[in-house]
């Protein structure tokens, strides 16, 4: 085979580039806590009422001696429950784990302008943990087409100082 020596050099450089990309991703994943969601659990989308999704909202849990929060969200055509009618309120600098599923069609759950971005698929529970670093409001958009009124589907996350966090809104 006849490969010009410039092209051979370029092919080597290409491998370097590919290896560099893989290395950055692995480094980010391992050392910088930039994860993606994986396989968590399946659920019967027609019977969410009997699960924690039947009473969606923010729950307080204690894990490893720390107070953490769990947020159960149902994405429905065309709202986040909770999120749309009332904002999801969580304290700043605290571990918050989201559990998201859909009883009807595919939706997206994207906290606009952040790296929190996941699909809500009927039958699957999307689970991820995060820490909100600053006190502010975030918008949530559905970023997967979910039907004729897809574009009105939005919600809000309200991150408040720990001292102002109102525990009366928690669900059991």
């Amino acid at each position, binding site marked *: 085979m006849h490969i010009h020596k410039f092209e051979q050099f370029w092919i080597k450089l290409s491998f370097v580039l590919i290896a560099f990309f893989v290395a950055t991703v692995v480094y980010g994943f391992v050392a910088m806590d930039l994860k993606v969601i994986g396989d968590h659990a399946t659920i019967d989308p027609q019977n969410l009422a009997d699960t924690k999704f039947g009473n969606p909202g923010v729950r307080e849990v204690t894990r490893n001696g720390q107070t953490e929060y769990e947020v159960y969200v149902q994405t429905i*055509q*065309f709202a986040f429950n909770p999120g749309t*009618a009332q904002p999801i309120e969580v304290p700043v600098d605290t571990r918050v784990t989201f559990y998201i599923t859909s009883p009807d069609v595919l939706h997206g759950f994207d906290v606009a302008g952040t790296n929190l971005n996941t699909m809500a698929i009927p039958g699957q529970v999307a689970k991820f943990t995060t820490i909100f670093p600053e006190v502010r409001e975030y918008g949530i958009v559905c970023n997967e087409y979910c*039907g*004729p*009124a897809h574009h009105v589907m939005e919600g809000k996350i309200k991150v408040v100082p720990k001292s102002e966090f109102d525990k009366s809104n928690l669900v059991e």
Partner: protein
Amino acid sequence: MYEEKSDNSTKKLVKILVIVGIGIPVLVELMTLFNLINVQIFEDEKDVNSNDTNVTEVRGFGEGDTLFANQESAVLIDQLRVKVSAQEWRFALGITSMDSTSQEKLQIRVDSLRLQSKKILLGIDSSSWEVRQTVPAQIYGEWALPNGDIPTKLFVSIEQQEADSTTRVSQEIPLHKIPVRYNQE
């Protein structure tokens, strides 16, 4: 083959095309690159779009709000919803009279609807726009919307009949966050 040799006018055209068709794109990309790096690295702490640009929020009405609050015949919005299905969009409105003691006749009328597309739907065109009932009353109406449109403002009037006189009051009701839901039926 293409025309013999490109003559002078073609050469000039090519020059213009290259400047406009390739020059502008290169400029756009360079500006993007410059701005990205400039903003992210050199203006890090400046918080470019300060979040305080408070849009003076006109508070709209929603489910649970009271209409004609300063009248004696105040009414409550107990349902406000856009029901969406593949074929049609419907606007559903439920109103309850607050005062269950008065015996006078009350007529509640949705005069017109202003939609997001700036269209106005007139109430009188369709019989279902007018709802008559005596108090205490709970009324409910549904209206077909143009596909894809959402009401932003309601014009409602009530007529209170007392003996021989009737008082008519109208109110403009800006709506806030109407829940849009898939219509299961």
